[in-house]
């Protein structure tokens, strides 16, 4: 009896001890990595440079992307036996929650991917400065200067683009044929866009020319740059447009909505164009939607019709779209192995084996050499993307960064546009309210980052 009681107490103490140790972990990871080193010192041949190193790499994406990225990292391990890479990935939803939590607690991975929000992280000083590795561990000579500039902040290169893409209109050729229309060329305008939408919508019930982009910030941004304006004027830290521009943009789409040539507000929500399995363009019910070019293959896979990419309609300044960085690989400022981080970055963008494994999943390769490697063996679908990028690459477009607080900003624009679409607010009022809200969000986020 006494014995069992003693045993019970002992086991309870054990559980407690485990819990206490779990409570106070945190610095344990480093310790673990070190024990890993000491267990196999002979293998490294004693040289200090051959020290065993562990790198954590994190990215967002689906299973396909996870598979190819992991395969690419395996290749890297093969070529650098002293480096062990631990992959971590999550879907896009939740990726930045996770990353921010890790950054806040000082447990961020050595390398991680960022999108056009890289500016927000660069200004918070959490990214590794790669300048001193350029020319040694990292070769940037094959990457276009624009993509390098994009990731240079305060003179410090803080990320390497791992995919170039552009905005395009995904078009279903079958619907154009049915309406007897030729495919638009680079010289088409927004007026043509309106006319073509009408002509396509006239071919049948429940057929529409285009999805409704009145609530999408990226497309609004393109429209603004075509008019010497922009969403966010980064050097002056203010908005680069007026409420009247929003009203003009809303009016453009409201006209097509009234004419029934773009999808209804309900369809816009229930048949989400960004979801390849829901998009009505792949189903042959809508002729056009905007996509980032690196997603072309995913959409084509879901459609029985032949899809193609056409440029965005021109404004007074031309179409003003360019080849941009779709994603960037960055290092964590507090990484213990900055040199190895730089080596992996170089492998990612400059190694032919890596390029062949990764393909165009994150956009076409940023290194001109790697692009040539892939282009030589491109499939029909991939050729569409390369051809498209050749067409738009000539435009010289200034660098554009996300407005601080862009997530909230995007939602406000969407809300304002839906207020118009569902007839709850007139255009002028919706535009005014969005603009006021936008100023407020910008102000709040600027003060949060400068403090």
């Amino acid at each position, binding site marked *: 009896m006494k014995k069992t009681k003693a045993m019970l107490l002992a086991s*309870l103490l054990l*559980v407690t001890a485990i819990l*206490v140790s779990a409570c106070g972990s945190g610095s344990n990871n480093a310790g673990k990595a070190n024990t890993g080193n000491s267990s196999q010192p002979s293998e490294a041949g004693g040289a200090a440079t051959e020290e065993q190193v562990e790198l954590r790499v994190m990215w967002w994406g689906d299973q396909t992307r996870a598979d190819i990225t992991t395969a690419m990292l395996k290749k890297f391990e093969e070529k650098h036996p002293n480096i062990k890479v631990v992959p971590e990935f999550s879907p896009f939803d939740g990726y930045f929650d996770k990353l921010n939590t890790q950054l806040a607690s000082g447990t961020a991975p050595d390398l991680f991917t960022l999108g056009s929000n890289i500016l927000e992280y660069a200004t918070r000083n959490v990214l590794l400065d790669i300048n001193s590795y350029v020319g040694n561990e990292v070769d940037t000579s094959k990457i276009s200067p624009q993509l390098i500039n994009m990731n240079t902040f305060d003179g410090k290169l803080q990320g390497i683009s791992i995919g170039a893409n552009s905005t395009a209109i995904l078009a279903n050729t079958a619907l154009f044929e049915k309406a007897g229309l030729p495919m638009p060329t680079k010289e088409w305008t927004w007026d043509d866009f309106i006319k073509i939408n009408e002509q396509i919508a006239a071919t049948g019930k429940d057929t529409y020319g285009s999805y409704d982009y009145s609530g999408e910030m990226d497309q609004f941004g393109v429209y603004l740059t075509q008019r010497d304006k922009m969403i966010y004027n980064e050097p002056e830290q203010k908005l680069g447009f007026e409420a009247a521009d929003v009203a003009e943009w809303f009016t453009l789409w409201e006209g097509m909505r009234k004419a029934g040539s773009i999808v209804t*507000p309900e369809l816009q*929500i229930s048949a989400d164009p960004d979801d390849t399995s829901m998009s009505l363009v792949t189903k042959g019910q809508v002729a056009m939607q905007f996509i980032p070019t690196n997603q072309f293959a995913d959409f084509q896979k879901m459609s029985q019709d032949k899809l193609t990419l056409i440029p965005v309609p021109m404004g007074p300044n031309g179409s003003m779209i360019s080849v941009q960085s779709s994603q960037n690989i960055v290092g964590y400022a507090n990484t213990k192995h900055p040199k190895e981080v730089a080596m992996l970055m170089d492998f990612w963008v400059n190694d032919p084996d890596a390029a062949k494994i990764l393909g165009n999943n994150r956009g076409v390769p940023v290194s001109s050499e790697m692009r040539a490697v892939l282009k030589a063996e491109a499939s029909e679908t991939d050729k569409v993307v390369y051809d498209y990028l050749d067409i738009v690459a000539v435009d010289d477009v200034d660098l554009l960064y996300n407005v601080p607080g862009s997530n909230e900003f995007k*939602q406000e624009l969407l*809300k304002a546009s*839906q207020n118009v679409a569902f007839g709850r607010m007139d255009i002028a009022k919706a535009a005014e309210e969005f603009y006021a809200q936008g100023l407020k969000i910008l102000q709040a986020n600027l003060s949060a980052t400068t403090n």
Partner: protein
Amino acid sequence: MDSVTGVATQTVVKRKTRRSLKRNLTGYLFLLPWLIGFFCMAIGPILASLYLSFTNYNMLKAPDWIGLHNFTEMFTGDATFTHSLKLTFQYVFLSVPLRLVFALAVAIILNKGLRLLGLYRTVYYIPSLLGGSVAIAVVWKKIFSGDGLFNRFLEIFHIDAPDWVANPSYIIYSIVALSVWQFGSSMVIFLAGLKQIPGEIYEAAAVDGVSRTRQFMRITLPLLSPVILFNLVMNMIGSFQVFTSGYIIGDGHGGPIDSTMFYSLYLYLKGFSYFNMGYASAMAWVMLVIIGIFTAIVFASSKYWVYYGDGKDERG
């Protein structure tokens, strides 16, 4: 003599306190894993969130003390906050009574002594589970969409129905309907409560010629009232924190036009999507106070309508 007994009593008392201490110590030791979990994992974050609610904190920079600013902003400058609060109240006042009535009705039917009772109980409980709740919200979205099952059904009667989950005017009702459908856990508790009511009471009432409705009003409801109170409180607390259905049936950002912007969802977006942790923490504390007030009101009112069967309520 006296002193001898005194010493004896003293030692007895001493031994008793020591023994009780020893006994309690064992208890505390058993509690220790939980206590450590509580102090390490729960108290810390709770206090941290209280502190953060007075700061501007974006998770990347150190929190910046701004006093009551988050709270004043909430009640004076944030239209979405006011909207989310209203929407959540609307949801609570619609869904809780409906769900309780539905759960009670199903429990009464199941209590009639059906065969395969266990099976039905399990099946009806499934929508209440978390995994089930996500799955069922996804199915719900399909059923009530523009060309979904529900509208196809209405088409038979030539009713031209809107898209219940894409139109901002109707989406709240499809979410309320979903919450009513997730009546399982309340139903199981009601069922247990119904089984506690002795059959003789009904027999006696029936012999006296009391109608079914009167039996329900005068026997079932009073004897079930403690269970109703429990279900009411639990459902109310749960409904104030509604998140999953709004997140999945809406676009995850409270859309269209904030029609699914429930309080918890707005809190989550503020914290994890807009990276304003200080504001999100402040919102969490406001919600805690609101839930506290409503729970207190329900408990205060309970002495007028809850019957515990031990005679204590006779005075009330």
